[in-house]
């Protein structure tokens, strides 16, 4: 059941009705975040295989980005844009939190999204064919693992909100479960390079969380989404060289 709670929060995929939106089930759902990442990755790999029969690489890669945005409801991209608007504006921490809540997109958000999507697209195009599927799976799983790490390990910035509900239930156990799943999946799929990617994702999450904490009273749902997008981009860029350095 807690798997479906995670699926409901992270995706627009169909889930059973009447799932809990509070309580310990949310804490347990955190352990399933990397599994949801693997599921999203598997859907992308399947779409990649099908579309590659018909379309050139560049267009397939754009369609993969479209599919991922549809599957997640654009949740993390939206968080990333709000985070750009909030963090790059020269305001007080409280005013930055108010900017996060504004549904409109400012110029930093637009510039951020355009740059991020262009990077993701270029990185997808440069993935080596042999490890393409494994890299997609590892990237999406580890990006969702960093959200669990950020939720458990760093303070939350608002008195209320979706992130607060998770934060209150988040514990070391959930982080341990998520880390085991993410580590085993990354290790099985990409060997030593997969484990190096996990370490890289952890360092990136730590740096990003500290960057945010210098500008905000704590992390928020939007910054978790931003972290997910940034780590996805980082891993798409970094996995090919990591696999060359550490062949499995």
């Amino acid at each position, binding site marked *: 059941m807690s798997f479906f709670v995670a699926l409901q929060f992270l995706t627009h995929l169909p889930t059973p009705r009447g799932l809990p939106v509070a309580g310990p089930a949310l804490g347990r759902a955190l352990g399933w975040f990397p599994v949801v990442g693997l599921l999203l990755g598997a859907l992308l790999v399947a779409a990649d295989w099908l579309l590659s029969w*018909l*379309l*050139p*690489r*560049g*267009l397939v*890669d*754009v*369609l993969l*980005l*479209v599919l991922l*945005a549809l599957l997640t409801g*654009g949740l993390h*991209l*939206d968080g990333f*844009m*709000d985070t750009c608007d909030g963090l790059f504006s020269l305001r007080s921490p409280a005013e930055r939190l108010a900017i996060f809540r504004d*549904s*409109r*997109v400012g110029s930093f*958000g*637009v510039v951020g*999204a*355009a740059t991020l*999507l*262009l990077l993701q*697209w270029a990185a997808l195009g440069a993935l080596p064919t042999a490890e393409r599927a494994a890299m997609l799976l590892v990237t999406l799983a580890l990006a969702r693992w960093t959200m669990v790490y950020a939720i458990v390990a760093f303070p939350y910035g608002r008195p209320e909100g979706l992130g607060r509900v998770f934060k209150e239930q988040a514990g070391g156990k959930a982080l341990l479960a998520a880390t085991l799943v993410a580590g085993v999946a990354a290790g099985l799929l990409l060997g030593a390079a997969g484990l190096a990617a996990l370490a890289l994702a952890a360092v990136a999450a730590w740096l990003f969380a500290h960057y945010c904490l210098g500008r905000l009273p704590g992390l928020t749902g939007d910054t978790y989404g931003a972290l997910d997008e940034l780590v996805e981009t980082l891993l798409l860029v970094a996995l090919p060289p990591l696999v060359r350095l550490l062949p499995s």
Partner: protein
Amino acid sequence: MVDALLVASLVVVSGALHLDGLVDTCDAVCTRASPAARLALMHDSRAHAPGAIVACLVLLAKFAALGALPGAVRAPTLLVAPLLGRWAIVVAYWAYPYARSTPGASLALKAQATAPRAAAVTLFALAVLALALGPAGLLVLAGATAAVHLLASGFRTRLPGLTGDTYGAIAELVETLTLALVPLVTRTG
């Protein structure tokens, strides 16, 4: 580099009119609100997250599609993609109900989008497609027609009818689809 300039010139030549419509349309249809409230949101000149994301992805798709055009069909594709985008606007004006009653350019166009005019532009598009692409041109027109119908029907489940913004969205998406579709049908057809 040339492809990026072509994508940019499509934006500049149209004054970003249709792209703006695409952004406003995506913001409206992706919002959880009543059809009437969505209609009001479309008048909001500021962009929200769905519109910004879709604008990026459509521009990227055009760039990727241009980069993958085989040399043999490149010139014909560049000719027919913008043509079919504008053809789609006329057909959508004619075929589907209009949502607003406020007087303006869009309402005037709706009143003038008669069946003979839709037929005339379709014949013109068909002639250009046949000359540029031969029999495969028919498949491209069929694909564009299907896209117009799917998009317009989709918008109508979320809006009381079509508006100027949604015609822009249809034009952008049909233009993008055509760029991807021509190499596909000329390869297999």
